[in-house]
């Protein structure tokens, strides 16, 4: 029985439940050596001298690499995804705590670590800046004195929208709301840390990397550019990946060090970072200081939004987003509402903190945008003493307005927002909840109900607008039907748990009437797959899913010609039903895809210009992003004595268009909802005044467990994307984007009795307790 779209068990699972997943740290090669990175204890210091003699004398050490070693190969610096440069190993200064200073290659993991202790680095500590708001102060320490002409820590200014029109609306608005908000620095923290096994074959000159990468092809191109190795001599194998969430998009210094280590020793070198290295040095997320302003009428009509952002990019500008979007897709801060005007200005600055910046399932900073607008809308409800659900319903875009171009120029493709919100309110039993809340308040209990409505912008992207380091964000697929009728699909995107082996097989199955079991999905190996930019920003289904459907349709059309030759009829006289072409009006006269495939490989004579075999490829250039949406409702109880927040219920209605495998979609939504609880209540990479990172382990960087998460209550609406071949929209990040404001809005709602209007995440018991006391404090700095 063929099956296309629908619930089915994942093809990946049999290996994982047996412990037979194959992750980078599972790779064992003959003669493999182990690398370890020496990191800076200082957030900002001059490197005066590095003495490696004792480490080199360790009996099990095979190589010690410093910035000087790399300089000889012109590899001491590497380009970042934002066109800046980043030190691979420090040569002049260290610029954040945890920065890479030296690399040891030894015969085993433990010896490599031991040898780090034997390296003596002489530092001259310098004043550090870890508070972005101080980064542009006159006299602030200059972090990037390596850049010619650098005179301050300023990176960029970027703006979008119409400042004058927005100003005019604000000038005559009946109500305005202003609030400073911090979206704190958080970290994607996949359970598998980042790592690589580098094997440079000195005879063939071929470099093979087993790497934790979400973007194997893009990495291969970058390695070619950085190392000077010819690109065809580089093979990236991305085996099973233990979660990514954006953490595994950039290239990290450890990867390059392992490559050089393999070149120097002639043996494979494995490097896996530990958890502290992961949290302290790799791609963080958020760290947006936002001032949001909202203009409205007394009747609750939202008219304009104005935002000023100070973006903390850390010591190197390594944010991962399309080139022309230095603040990612934050421009969709106009949210799900029909505004008269909007304007935003973002300033990026360097600080003595780890680089990175666009990660953690953020859809290129739509997360920050949604948080901002949904907090502002709740504050307006507070100000007007309006119900936040009714206020949103009043202002939501109406179905007939789509496609809708918002005030900052993004064209939302489709959606039925009121229906989505209504469904969420129904599932929640909203009216009853509000009654219960009144009763609870009367008893002195702090119950809160929080709503968020989000519009996502995912599936980058159209090549005329979007590239990363000059590479267009288009992805290829190759589909081959075997002579016996099974199929092999090769894709460029890279699963980190999303279940591509299943969903992509289902797309082919749906289009060609095969069983998904008969479709092998090949991925994660640049020698065996077509080029593409990889998986992040919820782009796999919007881009490569579309490419797959189109390739399958091309195969179908080729099959039609072959079937026509087999049946000796005109192709125009054939009709398709799942899995088979037949003669119109004579259904018995037909050929199955398997019969056609065999014939396509046989001696059957084909019309002129028609090639044998049965295969097709496609490189997909999306005409637009896809715009999923959702309505979330969170119910919390706050302990007035301790400030502890318990999430009682969480209702999530998502519209991601057509669902290929609803089971997988729901799983992805579950994940993002847990992220929201984590970010709203627990997670933060904080720093002390001296620049010490205070979030460097899972004892300090708290993640939600089964006890913080409720049983999720999901609902769905389906508004197919009009421009996507199967009507699907990306969903991998929707819940991470949409859930944090629902949780925060619920907590603030619970604290209404105390007149609390806003408190920054994470709403830890201490933060909530302070808010109750009327003194909310910043949470990202251990500075009061």
């Amino acid at each position, binding site marked *: 029985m063929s099956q296309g779209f629908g619930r089915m068990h994942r093809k990946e699972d049999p290996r994982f439940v*047996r412990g037979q997943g194959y992750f980078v740290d*599972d790779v064992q090669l003959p003669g493999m050596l182990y690398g370890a990175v020496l990191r800076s204890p200082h957030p900002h210091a001059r490197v005066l001298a590095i003495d490696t003699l004792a480490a080199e004398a360790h009996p099990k050490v095979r190589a010690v690499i410093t910035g000087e070693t790399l300089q000889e190969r012109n590899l001491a610096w590497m380009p970042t995804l934002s066109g800046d440069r980043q030190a691979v190993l420090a040569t002049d200064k260290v610029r954040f705590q945890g920065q890479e200073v030296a690399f040891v290659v030894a015969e085993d993991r433990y010896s490599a670590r031991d040898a780090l202790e034997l390296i003596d680095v002489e530092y001259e500590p310098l004043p550090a800046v870890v508070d972005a708001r101080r980064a542009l102060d006159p006299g602030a320490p200059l972090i990037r004195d390596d850049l010619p002409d650098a005179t301050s820590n300023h990176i960029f200014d970027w703006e979008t929208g119409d400042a004058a029109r927005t100003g005019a609306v604000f000038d005559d608005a009946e109500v305005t709301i202003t609030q400073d908000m911090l979206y704190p620095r958080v970290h994607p923290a996949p359970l598998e840390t980042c790592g690589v096994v580098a094997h440079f074959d000195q005879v063939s000159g071929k470099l093979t990397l087993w790497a934790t990468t979400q973007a194997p092809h893009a990495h291969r191109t970058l390695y070619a550019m950085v190392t000077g190795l010819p690109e065809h001599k580089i093979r990236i194998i991305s085996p099973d990946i233990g979660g990514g969430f954006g953490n595994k998009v950039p290239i990290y210094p450890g990867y390059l060090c392992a490559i050089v280590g393999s070149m120097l020793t002639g043996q494979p070198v494995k490097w896996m970072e530990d958890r502290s290295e992961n949290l302290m040095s790799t791609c963080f997320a958020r760290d947006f200081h936002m001032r949001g302003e909202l203009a409205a009428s007394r009747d609750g009509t939202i008219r304009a939004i104005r935002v000023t952002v100070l973006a903390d990019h850390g010591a190197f500008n390594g944010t991962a987003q399309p080139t022309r979007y230095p603040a990612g897709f934050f421009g969709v801060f106009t949210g799900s509402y029909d505004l008269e005007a909007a304007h935003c200005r973002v300033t990026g600055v360097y600080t003595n903190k780890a680089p990175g910046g666009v990660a953690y399932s953020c859809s290129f900073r739509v997360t920050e945008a949604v948080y901002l607008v949904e907090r502002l809308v709740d504050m307006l409800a507070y100000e007007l003493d309006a119900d936040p659900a009714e206020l949103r319903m009043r202002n939501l875009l109406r179905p007939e307005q789509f496609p809708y171009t918002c005030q900052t120029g993004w064209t939302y493709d489709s959606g039925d927002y009121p229906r989505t919100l209504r469904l969420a309110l129904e599932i929640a039993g909203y009216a009853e909840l509000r009654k219960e809340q009144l009763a609870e308040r009367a008893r002195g209990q702090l119950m809160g109900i929080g709503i968020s409505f989000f519009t996502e912008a995912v599936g980058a992207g159209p090549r005329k607008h979007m590239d990363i380091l000059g590479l267009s964000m288009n992805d290829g697929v190759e589909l081959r039907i075997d002579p016996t009728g099974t199929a092999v699909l090769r894709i460029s995107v890279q699963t980190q748990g999303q279940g591509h082996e299943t969903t992509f097989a289902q797309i082919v199955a749906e289009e060609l009437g095969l069983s998904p079991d008969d479709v092998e999905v090949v991925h994660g190996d640049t020698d065996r797959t077509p080029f593409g930019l990889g998986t992040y920003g919820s782009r796999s289904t919007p881009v490569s899913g579309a490419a797959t459907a189109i390739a399958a349709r091309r195969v179908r059309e080729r099959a039609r010609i072959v079937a026509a030759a087999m049946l000796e009829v005109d192709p125009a006289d054939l009709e398709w039903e799942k899995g088979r072409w037949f003669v119109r009006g004579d259904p018995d006269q037909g050929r199955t895809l398997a019969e056609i495939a065999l014939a396509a490989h046989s001696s059957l004579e084909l019309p002129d210009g028609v090639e044998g075999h049965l295969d097709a490829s496609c490189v997909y250039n999306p005409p637009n992003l896809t715009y999923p949406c959702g309505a979330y409702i969170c119910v919390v109880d706050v302990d007035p004595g301790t400030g502890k927040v318990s999430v009682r219920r969480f209702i999530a209605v998502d519209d991601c268009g057509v669902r290929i495998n609803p089971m997988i979609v729901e799983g992805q939504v579950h994940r993002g909802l847990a992220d929201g609880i984590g970010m709203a209540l627990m997670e933060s990479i904080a720093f002390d005044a001296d620049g010490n990172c205070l979030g460097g382990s899972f004892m300090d960087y708290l993640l939600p467990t089964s006890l913080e*998460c409720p049983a*999720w209550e999901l609902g769905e609406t389906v508004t197919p994307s009009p421009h996507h071949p199967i009507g699907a929209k990306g969903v991998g990040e929707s819940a991470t984007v949409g859930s944090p404001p629902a949780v925060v809005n619920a907590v603030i709602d619970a604290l209404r009795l105390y007149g609390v209007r806003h408190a920054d995440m994470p709403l830890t018991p201490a933060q909530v307790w302070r808010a109750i006391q009327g003194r909310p404090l910043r949470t990202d700095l251990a500075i009061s």
Partner: protein
Amino acid sequence: MTIRIAMTVNGTEYARDVEPRLLLIHFLRDELGLTGSHWGCDTSNCGSCVVWLDAKPVKSCTLLAAMADGHAVRTVEGLEQDGKLDPVQQGFIECHGLQCGFCTPGMMMTARWLLDHHPDPDEAQIREAISGQICRCTGYENIVRSIRWAAEHNAEHKEQP
């Protein structure tokens, strides 16, 4: 310096000369090639490394291999018996209890222990049992369902030869 240690892992006897400070997780993965158990955090917080030591779940990233000398260890590789998946393994497939698969072996080892001692756990008991472990993919809901599925199918599993 090395010391000689011996232990039973999934019913098979192993003896090795190892560094005294070698962690149990590294012994299992690097010495025995049992890579189903994973290392995730260093600090006993994530539970990717959970195995059984003498029929109790432990975090093998914070145990020395030498501490397992003379003991019996069971890992995810020992769950499947005679070519038949344990109901816990089947439950994770049935209820989509995993995505990236990294935390899964540790979760399943804890789940197996729970069901051996509490054959009919409710949702709260399941959440409590796995609360010392982290999953970044599932939001836990489907893990809870998977373990419930296993509880409901435990009996028929045991009845089979």
